[in-house]
């Protein structure tokens, strides 16, 4: 194998598993250390710079970081990264004065269509540069789906208002209660660029299922129903409710139903339980609230008696997987099962819909109805001054993805408005700093603790079911947060190897608790992976390979289960190993957003 080029920041970036998995590349271990030091405000600001909505995300994020967390490979459970983010938000001081202000007007005007996390991120990144920003939304308030879809018992309105406020307060002009019905017209309004962050707003229906028309009064489309609840147009539902679907919309619909009068609420889903789209914790939360999940049930018809919905019929199926893992749902042949109900909520997915973007604008779409986009860095559409991001770009995803798109689109819009080449992207902001304090001392807590993952306490069930505004999760207290924070392995404390210093004494190999380091003859990667002290079977994790050493061997480190304990560097007589703190911040339109503030 070729010697690893650690001057490419992507190498060490990938070692920080959580940060690498985070679409917005939040420097996770850096903020977790600050939490352990009770520096909640600083922890919050690091988050805010990267993911814009720490309070929101600390409660609702899909947390792609957690399955990636190294701790999950070393012991059972990953660090509770998401809930630590909430700790930073809960315990911080007033940060308003520390945030950047609108910049001196630069004469450029940008329209943002939709006030969801994607548009708001673009606004946040561009406002300090002096752009005039106009945010349009058909809803009366900003936030997009964060406000209209995510129920208050998961995300209190006050948290949302605060974090949206930080952005809108940077001199952003809001054009709310306004549905944009013509892109052609928008293009005539003198905007230098337009960002489309309109989400994926059309909920799927089951239009052909027998009884659909007749029972219409008691059949609701999940996302429309949830926004009706959020904006208080809908205040109640029948006692017996069927929620169709297995994703997060279904989970929010069933739990909301329990709070609006639903007593017998069931989630009924076509797929097997394990294949459901909802995250495991969402399913647990629903079941904890007394909501059974019936899997392998394919809807057959809405049963209507005397013009009124009385229940639904389902075909029971079994999932069969072919050699490629493709799933087929095969009927068990049993008689259809009847489930009585008063209301049905259809929560089986959403789609993009752009009825307001005319053909003549030159904005072209794929056959799936998503816009054709230059690439997933620039987010530029086939009309050069129009950019897309968030769910509108590639279909329904999540908040943190919308934020990541927003950062990239903001960079593109800024380059575009300056007449620069969009493909010449600014590099990430990176630092790598030695951490040695003494022979056995590093500037971070290098010894991993053995504690298991802490569970977040919940509000009393009866109380939370009585009022949809009562938040279910209570968050960690400071002491629990400290222990949870200490579980973090500090994967950003990089093991940096200097070939020229190594005298091949083996001290590092001998001490390494998790057998990461091997000195051996070089070979091609597949062979090298097998030759290590413990074969490196996890191919998603890189090998760190040195240049040739004096004995003709190379040092090979399997990054997979390195504890970042620093023992290799402590036992190295020549400082060939050093622990260096790696900070990686993805490129943003405004570099050093918080520099002035800190």
């Amino acid at each position, binding site marked *: 194998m070729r010697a690893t080029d650690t001057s490419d920041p992507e190498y060490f970036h990938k070692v920080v598993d959580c940060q690498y998995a985070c679409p917005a590349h939040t420097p996770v271990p850096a903020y977790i250390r600050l939490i352990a030091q009770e520096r909640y405000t600083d922890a919050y600001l690091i988050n805010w710079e990267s993911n814009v909505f720490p309070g929101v995300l600390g409660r609702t994020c899909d947390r792609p970081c957690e399955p990636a967390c190294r701790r999950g490979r070393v012991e059972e459970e990953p660090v509770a990264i998401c809930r630590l983010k909430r700790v930073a938000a809960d315990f911080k001081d007033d940060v308003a004065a520390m945030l950047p202000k609108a910049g001196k007007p630069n004469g450029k005007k940008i329209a943002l269509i939709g006030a969801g996390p994607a548009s708001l991120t673009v606004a946040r990144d561009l406002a300090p540069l002096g752009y005039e920003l106009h945010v349009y939304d058909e809803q009366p308030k900003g936030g997009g789906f964060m406000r209209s879809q995510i129920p208050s018992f998961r995300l209190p309105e006050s948290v949302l208002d605060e974090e949206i406020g930080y952005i809108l307060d940077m001199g952003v002009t809001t054009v709310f209660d306004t549905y944009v019905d013509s892109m052609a017209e928008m293009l005539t309004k003198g905007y230098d660029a337009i960002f489309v962050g309109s989400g994926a707003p059309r909920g799927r229906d089951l239009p052909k299922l027998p009884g659909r028309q007749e029972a219409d009064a008691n059949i609701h489309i999940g996302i429309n129903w949830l926004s009706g609840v959020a904006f208080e147009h809908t205040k109640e539902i029948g006692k017996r409710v069927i929620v169709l679907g297995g994703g997060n919309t279904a989970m929010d619909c069933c739990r909301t139903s329990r709070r609006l009068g639903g007593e017998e609420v069931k989630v009924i889903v076509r797929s097997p339980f394990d294949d459901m789209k909802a995250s495991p914790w969402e399913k647990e939360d629903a079941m904890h609230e007394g909501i059974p999940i019936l899997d392998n049930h394919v809807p057959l018809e809405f049963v209507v008696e005397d013009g009124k919905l009385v229940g639904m019929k389902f075909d029971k199926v079994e999932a069969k997987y072919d050699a490629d893992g493709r799933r087929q749902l095969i009927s068990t042949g049993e008689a259809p099962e009847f489930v009585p109900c008063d209301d049905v909520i259809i929560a089986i997915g959403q789609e993009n819909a752009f009825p307001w973007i005319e053909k003549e604008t030159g904005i072209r779409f794929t056959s799936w109805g998503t816009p054709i986009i230059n690439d997933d860095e620039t987010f530029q559409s086939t009309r050069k001054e129009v950019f897309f991001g968030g769910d509108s770009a590639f279909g329904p995803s999540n908040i943190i993805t919308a934020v990541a798109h927003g950062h990239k689109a903001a960079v593109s819009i800024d380059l575009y408005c300056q007449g620069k080449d969009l493909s010449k992207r600014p590099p990430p902001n990176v630092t790598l700093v030695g951490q040695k304090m003494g022979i056995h*001392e590093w500037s971070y807590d290098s010894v991993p603790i053995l504690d298991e993952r802490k569970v977040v306490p919940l509000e009393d069930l009866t109380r939370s079911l009585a009022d949809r505004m009562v938040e279910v999760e209570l968050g960690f207290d400071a002491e629990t947060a400290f222990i949870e924070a200490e579980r973090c392995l500090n994967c950003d404390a990089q093991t940096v190897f200097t070939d020229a210093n190594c*005298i*091949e*004494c083996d001290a590092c190999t001998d001490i390494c*608790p998790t057998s990461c380091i091997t000195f051996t003859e070089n070979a091609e990667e597949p062979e090298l992976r097998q030759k290590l002290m413990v074969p490196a079977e996890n191919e998603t994790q890189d090998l760190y390979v040195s240049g040739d050493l*004096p004995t003709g061997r190379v040092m090979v480190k399997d990054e997979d289960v390195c504890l970042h304990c620093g*023992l290799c560097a402590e036992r190295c*007589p020549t400082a060939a190993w050093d622990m260096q703190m790696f900070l990686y911040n993805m490129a943003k339109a405004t570099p050093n957003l918080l520099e002035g503030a800190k």
Partner: protein
Amino acid sequence: MSYYKPKFRHPNLPKNDLGYTVADYDGSISTLCAGCGHDSISAAIRNACFLSSIPPHKIAKLSGIGCSSKMPTYFLGKSHGFNSVHGRMPSVATGASVANRDLIYLGVSGDGDTASIGMGQFVHLIRRNVNMTYIVANNGCYGLTKGQDSATADLGSVNKYGGTNPFDGIDLASLALLQGASFVARSFSGDKEQLEPLIRAAMAHRGFAFIDVVSPCVTFANHSGSTKSYAATREHLDAMPVDFVPMREEIRTSYREGSSQSVTLHDGSIIHLMKAREDYRADDRTEALMAVQSANASGDILTGLLYLDPNSQDLNQTINLATKPLNKLGKDELCPGSRVLNSINEGLR
């Protein structure tokens, strides 16, 4: 601060026949200098015991005084151990091996502990062929007392204080050969590929197995001018690779590619001398002595299995010791009573 080794281990650590991982053979975290050759030897011993599937509680570690003699604390934390006075480990080992012949004895010593203060005791271990493995971590100096020249320091080597050694060093391997040791090897702490099989073979050997291991003192004897530094040792190393195949596996793999000579031990395990030195035969004491001497004369460090007599008679056999360990003999066996005494007396009449 980390004077502590984290408890987490690689989730896929291989297990040996006993179901143990190599971590089950760990000791406390080392307090020796970072990069000390002795730590590498500790790791080689740990790995060897793991690979040979020796139950840790079947091993007794013995040592004298010195950095090297501190080593037993840093491996096999679940084995027996005795840290004796300076140079006196041989007498403790002799006594222990006679008292409980069921344990596997592993002596760890230094060049000072063995070749200076302990020399008198050391040669008697050889003479008596005590059933044990004796490893000298040889750095040519007294590491623990700040690097004074030891009796194995080479003529002309320069110590940390700038002084040049005016004496010829004692070559412990030659001495062991001369004195009649039944197993003599030399190795280098930085060559685990050779050291591990040698330790496994030594522990399988019945009788006194001696391994002289060049083990750089990274603090006091790793500078230019010191002849036992990492760089100097590597430069002069003439290594004869060995492979060790325990009896259980040998049934399956009787032929080893690249092997030039194989020696079968009393328990059926086999040591393969690999092809690097086709001419070398490990069963001829005189030739071994000559090979070591001529390597020494040309400034080379000849490592590998130098000599082995697989059928030697150890102390316990020589003195006709009971086959059961003494500490397992009951009152009736130790004091068989007047009937047996009478019959002995009768026989003498």
